[in-house]
């Protein structure tokens, strides 16, 4: 599995990010996304189900077994998903660096 063909949505990006350090369940991903985005990004249940279903189909994440009494679904990142996340992070870093060089460079375009 390789790079995503187009930029990830914020929800997809945060779900992958919240799984980077180990398995996590839907509610944990939602809470951690709120913290990491400083309250800007919230992942509702419909969005979470659609995104996790799509990413499981793409082979970026997979479900892990959970204790029988626990109805929460635990997800983990696959190697392909890890690579997608790293590629997207690099792309965003590159974009941020480009924006910074222009915005903080101070030079005006020649007319």
């Amino acid at each position: 599995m390789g790079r995503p063909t187009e930029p990830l949505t914020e929800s997809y990006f945060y779900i992958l990010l919240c799984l980077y350090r180990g398995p996590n369940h839907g509610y944990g991903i939602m809470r951690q996304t709120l913290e990491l985005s400083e309250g800007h990004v919230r992942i509702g249940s419909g969005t979470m189900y659609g995104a996790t279903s799509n990413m499981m189909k793409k082979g970026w994440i997979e479900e892990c077994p959970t204790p029988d009494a626990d109805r929460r679904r635990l997800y983990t990142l696959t190697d392909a998903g890890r690579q997608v996340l790293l590629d997207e992070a690099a792309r965003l870093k590159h974009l941020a660096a480009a924006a910074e060089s222009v915005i903080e460079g101070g030079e005006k375009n020649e007319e």
Partner: protein
Amino acid sequence: MRNKKTRYVMYPAWEYRRELEDLNALSDAGWQLEKGGCFRSVFYRDESTRYRYALDYNQSIDDPVRYRDTFAEQGWEFISDTFNGWHFFRKVYDPDLPPEEYEIYTDESSVRDMADRWSRLGYTLGAIELVCATVNLFALLRHPSITSIAVALACLALGVMILVGAWRIRHPNVAGKPKKSMGWCFTTLFTVLLLGMFFGVIRYTQYSSSEYVYDPDLPPWTWEMSVPLPDFYTLDVEADTDAYVDITVTNKNGKVLAEMGGGGDLRAKEVMFLLPGKYDVTVQYADGTEPGTTGIFRYEIN
């Protein structure tokens, strides 16, 4: 005071947000949804809790248990689903929480995905309705009847309405929120369509084609016909005889409602409006005509 009540309301799919607003308002008034449906919803009385509702449209859930578990993780309780893919959820309302807490789709992409799922169905249904309307318009030209007029117009209006609705649900920002609910209009058209189809079937079942082998020794022939529904009926005659014949449709007072005659190779149609009641269809040789010897006579009233 009653502890349960049933509401018979139909919300078009593109007005699902209006349905949510109504469900939330009912919950604030102490009526909690027990079972949601496309036409019929059941509520029970409970003033102790207020809920906020969510409606999801998803016909192709690959893992229904994981689907409901994902909602349960964020406090959504599954209520019921409908035959056509709508799922009702509720969450206990806490006025201190932000409104986003009660949204199940939280980014533009997933909102669009849900809208796309329904609009694909909507465009298909709308196109089917328009095809049905066209077929019924052709049927109408052949055999005008109140039922075929009603079915054709209802199909046409429903088709246009569903296509516009599919566009609205797909482009909520451009379309904006409709000022008035079209639920009553949708319900009326749907009812007209069902009634039109129902009575149309009854009508055509009773007046299917009839064929008589012509017996030249026994004119005239009279058949009694019973009409249960007021409507336009077409008398369609096809005769292949060697004598001139007349055919008349009369009511029980002897008033002639349709009349035609001819001989040899007769092909004719006449439209008449009939009220419920008994009518006589009479076939006889035309005045001054010698009885024929052979022939087949068919008539059809539909």
